C-alpha cells in the first residue's frame, strides 16, 4: 500500500465510522484498536486479550500457516526477561490451532547460539510439547526483500517469514542500549539475514522502514516481565520488573507506543517510534489510541 493510499483509506474509513453511528442512532461497541490485559497467569491473560481483540478466528483462517515470531535472541532464562515468555506463545499457538491453522511455526534468528537460546528460553521445549514446527534460520533460504524504505531498502530475509499466511509478532518489552527500547518493530530484526549490525547506524529510521515494509498481521507484546536496564541481553534479576501485562494490537506502531508508555517512557522520544509516525504508521500519543483494558 502506498502512503497516499493509506491516508486516503484511513480518512475514508474514519469518516465512515464516525458518520455511521449518527445514521443508525445507536452505537455498537467498536472493536478496540488495542487491548491491554493484566492478571496472574500469562497464559490466561493472553487468551483473554485475544478474545477481547475479537478472537483468533478474526486473524487466522482455516488452513492458514501461521508464524509466531518471538524474541529468542539470547541464551537467558524466562526470569531474566530477555526472551518472549513461552506461556504467552503457548496461548497464541493453542488459539491459532483452535482457529483452524494448518501449522504453527516458531522461529527467530538469535544473537546467541540458536540451539542454546531455543532451549534455555523455554520456547523450544514448549514448542515441542505442543508439536509446533520449531525452525532454525537457514542461510540457504535467504532472499533479497525490498522494504522500500528511506534507510532500509533491499536486505536478505529468510523466506520462511515471507511465505506464511499469517505472521504474529510476539516480542518482549525490554530496554535496549542503542534503540532505547526493543518491542515489536525492533523484533523484526529477527527476520533479517546478513550483518544486521550494519543497521545500527540510523537505527530508528531502519527499524521504522523494516516494520513499515513487512506486515505483522497481529502484534502481541509480552510485558509480563520487562527488562528495565542493561538490555537487550540483561541477565541480572534486579534489572527485571514484573508487570504481568500483555498488549495486543493489529497496528505494530501503536502496540509499541502502548508498550513504551507502560515502560514509563514518552513514546514520541523513542527514535523508531517518531520515525514510524513520520511514515504515517499510526498514532503515537497513547491517550489517542482506543484501548480496552481487562483483567483475567
Amino acid at each position, binding site marked *: 500500500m502506498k502512503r497516499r493510499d493509506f491516508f486516503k483509506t484511513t480518512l475514508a474509513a474514519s469518516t465512515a465510522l464516525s458518520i455511521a453511528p449518527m445514521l443508525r442512532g445507536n452505537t455498537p461497541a467498536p472493536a478496540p484498536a488495542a487491548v491491554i490485559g493484566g492478571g496472574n497467569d500469562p497464559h490466561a491473560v493472553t487468551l483473554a486479550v485475544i478474545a477481547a481483540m475479537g478472537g483468533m478466528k478474526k486473524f487466522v483462517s482455516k488452513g492458514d500457516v501461521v508464524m509466531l515470531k518471538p524474541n529468542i535472541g539470547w*541464551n*537467558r532464562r524466562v526470569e531474566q526477561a530477555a526472551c518472549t515468555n513461552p506461556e504467552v506463545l503457548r496461548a497464541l499457538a493453542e488459539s491459532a490451532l483452535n482457529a483452524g491453522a494448518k501449522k504453527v511455526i516458531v522461529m527467530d534468528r538469535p*544473537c*546467541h*547460539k*540458536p*540451539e*542454546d537460546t531455543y532451549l*534455555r528460553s523455554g520456547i523450544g521445549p514448549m514448542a515441542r510439547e505442543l508439536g509446533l514446527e520449531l525452525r*532454525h*534460520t*537457514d542461510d*540457504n*533460504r535467504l532472499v533479497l526483500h525490498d522494504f522500500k524504505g528511506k534507510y532500509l531498502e533491499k536486505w536478505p530475509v529468510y*523466506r520462511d517469514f515471507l*511465505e506464511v499466511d499469517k505472521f504474529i509478532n510476539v516480542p518482549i518489552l525490554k530496554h*535496549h*542500549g*542503542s534503540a532505547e527500547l526493543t518491542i515489536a518493530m525492533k523484533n523484526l530484526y529477527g527476520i533479517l539475514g546478513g*550483518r544486521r*549490525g*550494519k543497521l*545500527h*547506524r*540510523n*537505527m530508528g529510521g531502519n527499524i521504522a522502514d523494516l516494520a513499515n515494509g513487512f506486515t505483522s498481521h497481529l502484534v502481541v507484546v509480552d510485558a509480563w516481565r520487562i527488562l528495565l536496564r*542493561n538490555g*537487550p*541481553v*540483561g*541477565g*541480572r534479576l534486579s*534489572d527485571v520488573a514484573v508487570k504481568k501485562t500483555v498488549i495486543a494490537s493489529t497496528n505494530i506502531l501503536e502496540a509499541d507506543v502502548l508498550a513504551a508508555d507502560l515502560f514509563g517512557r514518552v513514546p514520541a522520544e523513542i527514535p523508531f517510534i517518531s520515525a514510524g509516525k513520520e511514515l504515517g504508521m499510526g498514532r503515537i500519543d497513547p491517550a489517542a489510541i482506543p484501548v480496552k483494558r481487562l483483567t483475567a
Partner: protein
Amino acid sequence: MTRANARVLRFCRVVSQILFLALFIILLVSASRMFFYFDPLLGLLNFLATGEVMTLFLLSLIPLGLTLVFGRFFCGWVCPLGTLHQFFTWLGIRGKKKKIEPVPRKALRVKYVVLIVLVVMTLMGTHLGGWLDPLSLLTRSTAVSLAPAGNHGLNQALKAGAEDEGVAAKVVKPAYNLARRHIMTAEQRGFAQSVMVGLILILILGLNLWRRRFYCNTICPLGALYGLVARFSFMRLKTREGCKACNLCASHCTYAGGPFDDYRKADCLVCFNCAVDCPHDSVALDFTPPFSTAKRTPLDLGRRRVLGGVAAGLLAGALPAVGPRARQKTHGFIRPPGAVKEKDFLEKCVRCGQCMQVCPTNVIQPAALETGIDGLWTPVMRPDLGYCEYECNRCTLACPTLALEPLEMDEKKEFKIGTAVIDRNRCYTYADGYNCAVCEEHCPVPDKAIRFREVELWNFEGRLVKVKQIYVVPDLCVGCGICQNVCPRSDAPAILVTAEEEQREFSYY
C-alpha cells in the same frame, strides 16, 4: 586352531573394533573424556611433563596390564584410529591379486625412535605426544575437519531441499528437513586448521593403500609403547605340526610376519588373519610365562638409534624454550576459560581438540604458529570467528588433562580471559561520528563492561554532532569477545579482545 575357530575369533575382533569405534564416537559427541584415560602414552607423558600422577590416568594400566597377557590387542581390537587403518588396508587388499606390501622390516623400529624422541622432549619440557597419539589425533581430526566437513557435505548434497519449487526440491525436501533437524548444526562450523588437520588424516589413512597399517607399524608412539610391553607378553602365536611352510599365514598379516616366519610379538596385533589364512589349521596359540626370555623377539633397535633418539629429543625438546618466548614480554593470543599458566598449559594440553568439539560457538580454534611452533593445534580463542558464551562452561569440563581446569558456571562467568580494547581509529563512534553500539548491546556482563556516553564530536561530514560513544570498563570485562564478533565493520573489528589483564598467570617458567 581350526579355520572355523579362527574365523570366529576374527569375527569377534571385527565386532570389537566396530563397537569401540562406535563407543569412541559416542564419547566424543557426549564430550566425555573417558577414552583418553585408557591411553598409557598420554598417562606417561603427562606424568613426565607435570611430575604428578593424574589419578584417572591410572586406568591406562588396565590395557597395559592386559597387553602383558595378550600382546598388542589394543591396537588390533580397540584403537579407533587403528580400526580405520585396518579398514583402509582391508579395502586395498580385498579381492585383489596384487596384495598391498607390508612395511619394510627395518621401518618397524622407527616407531620406537619416535617414542624415545617424544619421551625425551617431554622431559625437556616440550610435550608433543598429542600430535601423534592416535586418540588425540583422531579426536582432533574429527572435531576440526571430519564433523564440519560432514555437515557441509550434507548441505551440499541436500540443499536443493531448501527451495520450495521444482521437482528436485520436492524429492529432496524430506531428507533435507530431517538432516537439518536432527544431524546438521544450525550454523555451519568452521576451523582455522581444517585443511591441514584434514589432509594429515587423509594422508595417514591413504598410506594404508601403499603399505599395510603404515601408521601403526612405523609411527604410532602408543603402538611402540604397547610393543615394548607386548615383547614380554604371556600369549603368542606359533605354528605347530602340520605346517607346510607355505607362509600363507603372512598374506594378510598387518606386518607380514606371520607365525611361521619372522614372527614378532611386538608387532603382532592379534588380529587372527594368519589363522584364517592357514590352509592346514596349523596356527596355534602358545602360552609362555611372561618375561620368559626364550621366545622374545629382538627389538632390533640398536644402541645407536636409542642414543640418536635421545640426542634428537634433547635438542628438539629444548628448542621451543629458547625461541622468542625466552625474551618476549607480551603475547598476542588468548586461551579458553580455565586455562592454567602458559608453561603448564603447553605441558598438559594434548592438542586433542575436545574443547573445540564441545564449544557451541566455534570460538575455540586450533592455533597455527601464533603460540609458538610447539603450540600448534593448542586451543586459542578467536573472537573473529566466535565468542565465548557467557552461560557456558563446556570446554572447562571437557579437557582430559586439565589444561583447562573445570569451572563451575558461576566461576566461569567471572573468569577473565582477556580485555576488550577499542580501536579508536576504526570505531564508528570515534572515527566517523555516528551511533552504533552493537558491542554494547551484546555485552553479556550484567553491569555492562561496554557502555556509551554522549559526547560532541566532529563527524565525517565535518559537523559537530552528538554521538553515543562507546567505552570499555576493563575491570568488568571478562574478555568473552562477543563485542569483537559482532562489530559491524567489514574490514576488521574496531573492538578487540587482547590478553591484557587476563586472569591466569602468563609465564613460560
